[in-house]
């Protein structure tokens, strides 16, 4: 049977433990501290002045819509540096049913050699 106490138990993982309730309490306390510290900040922010404008090294600001970074541009650097992997991966994903089955047969052959023959 499931008892009420069992809801509060710590999750033992062998060499570590994890209790989300304690973690949440800690996070809430941390947020409270941050909030209190925030209260000591200066309140000098002025609306309707130059302060609210974005500063792009003196360049004119784009339209709002153009400022949004599109999905495929977000990790441009990452994909560019790993181009060699992506080239191979794209070669692999042909979208062709026959190739899918070919992979299946190849894997089956490898498994057969590893398990069946050895």
């Amino acid at each position, binding site marked *: 049977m499931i008892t009420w106490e*069992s809801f509060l138990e710590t999750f033992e*993982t062998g060499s570590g433990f994890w209790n989300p309730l304690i973690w949440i309490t800690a996070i809430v306390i941390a947020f409270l501290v941050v909030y209190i510290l925030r209260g000591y900040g200066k309140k000098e922010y002025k609306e309707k002045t130059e302060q609210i404008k974005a500063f792009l090294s003196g360049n004119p600001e784009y339209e709002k819509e153009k400022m949004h970074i599109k999905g495929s541009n977000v990790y441009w650097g990452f994909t560019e540096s790993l181009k060699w992997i992506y080239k191979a*991966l794209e070669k692999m994903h042909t979208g062709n049913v026959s190739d899918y089955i070919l992979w299946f047969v190849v894997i089956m052959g490898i498994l057969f050699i590893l398990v069946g023959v050895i």
Partner: protein
Amino acid sequence: MNMDTILTHSPALIIAVPLLGAFLTPLISRINDKLRNVFVILTVGLTGFLVSLLSYDVLINGKIHTYVFGSQDIGSPVVRILFEVDGMNAFMIIIGAILVFVAVVYSWAFMKENTGLDKYYTLILLMAAGMFGMMLTGDMFNFFVFLEITSISSCALIAFWTNKGKAVEAGFKYIVISTIGALFILFAIAILYGQYNALNMAVLANSIQSPMTFLDKTALVLLIAGLAMKAGIVPMHMWLPDAYGRAPASVTLILVGTTQASLYALFRMVFTVYGNSLSLDAEPLRQIGEVDITLNGLLGVIIVLLAIITIIVGVLMALKQSDFKRTIAFAAVAEIGYMFLAVGAGLWAIGTTHGMMALKGGIFHIINDALDVGLLFLVAGAIYYATKETSLNKMGGLARNMKYTTIFFLIGLLAVSGMPPMNGFASKLLIYESTYLINPILAIVAILCSILLLAVFVKVFHSAFLGPKIPRFNDVKEVPKSMLIAMGLLACVIIFFGLFPDLIVNNIVDPAANALANNSNYISQIIGGP
């Protein structure tokens, strides 16, 4: 009929109720559309009630249920169709019940504008019946039949939007892949039948003794290859993004369940049917020099290698995609890799404490992945419903108009990438720790790829929900209530699982892991005690 009778018959009823509902749906659909929707939800709800009844009895009380069709006593289990429910089966049907219920609630509004909805609901219920059958059956050939029922109905559902060429093409790919996979599985079943004259899993498990014959090994290879393809292991995963990406979101949710049913079947075949050859005192397959090559070590290494490739390829491809649902689909491939990694590690170090831990982590991750990835797919469907747009490049600023959807996506994002305090963290923690004890490199790859997974979803979150308002989406509205309720249900379950991991692991995951690791109970229930 009192509770005990229902409990005794529940393994059969879990299949029969959706089947009956499926065939009644076209008739009720003639009367009224709303009545049909209510009827389907009631059918699925009744199935869910039976599932919870059965799995409570199996998981908490520790019983193993058997059900023989057509006769009261077991008699000769070799020929009769037999359902056997132990911890692992009970664990899987919980996942199936949650996913199907949520999908049906979600489709009320999501599919409202389509025609041919009577066929849609019939197929959904058939798919649910097939999935439950795959998860419950204790008979090899019966498993094949349910596998085919599931793949036929899910193929028809993937191609449900026949006005889109790509959906039809994805459906065709899916049916080709699943038919060939299933045929090779049938071939393996035939080999086992020819050798041992039995189709029952427990009887077969009892017959396959430690020095395996060549035919045993062949059947094992065919089973692993076929089921791994159905489960979407790299490099046999390519059908998965196509199918997941093109199907309606509610169908994708159940597809996640069927994929995991295949994964479950893979574990069942390896751990239970071939369980006698896996134990530590089994004879090694061959000796090369001083090293004994045992079946569990060999399979463990193979599975772990495949899993590592799966994780890396899935995450890297997800990072590159620009289509919302394809991104999530590749992330789902990576998530499948995590389960496979953990179970492979458990196989590698079978009989040790950390091996058991890895197994637990893998099994716990199955349910977490189903919930998290399912929630993300539902959010993708909601965005498609609201904007009729699937490309991430054309989205932006949707958080302003779709507040609840954004919150649900955030929950799914945190959960799928394993951030505390969501449920994904608890299972991934288990996986990291146990794989670190086996080989640190595995844990390092797993953690790195988990970080990349977070990056993937941060990208999705940024490009779809954040950013300035795009004029095209000015009059986008929040999705209807039934979709919100469906997503909310999944989100609640995710948060519950995240807050009480110990409760879940002790009561649901432990019996399942024990059932996998030790096949003697499963066998003795049919053959008779040792």
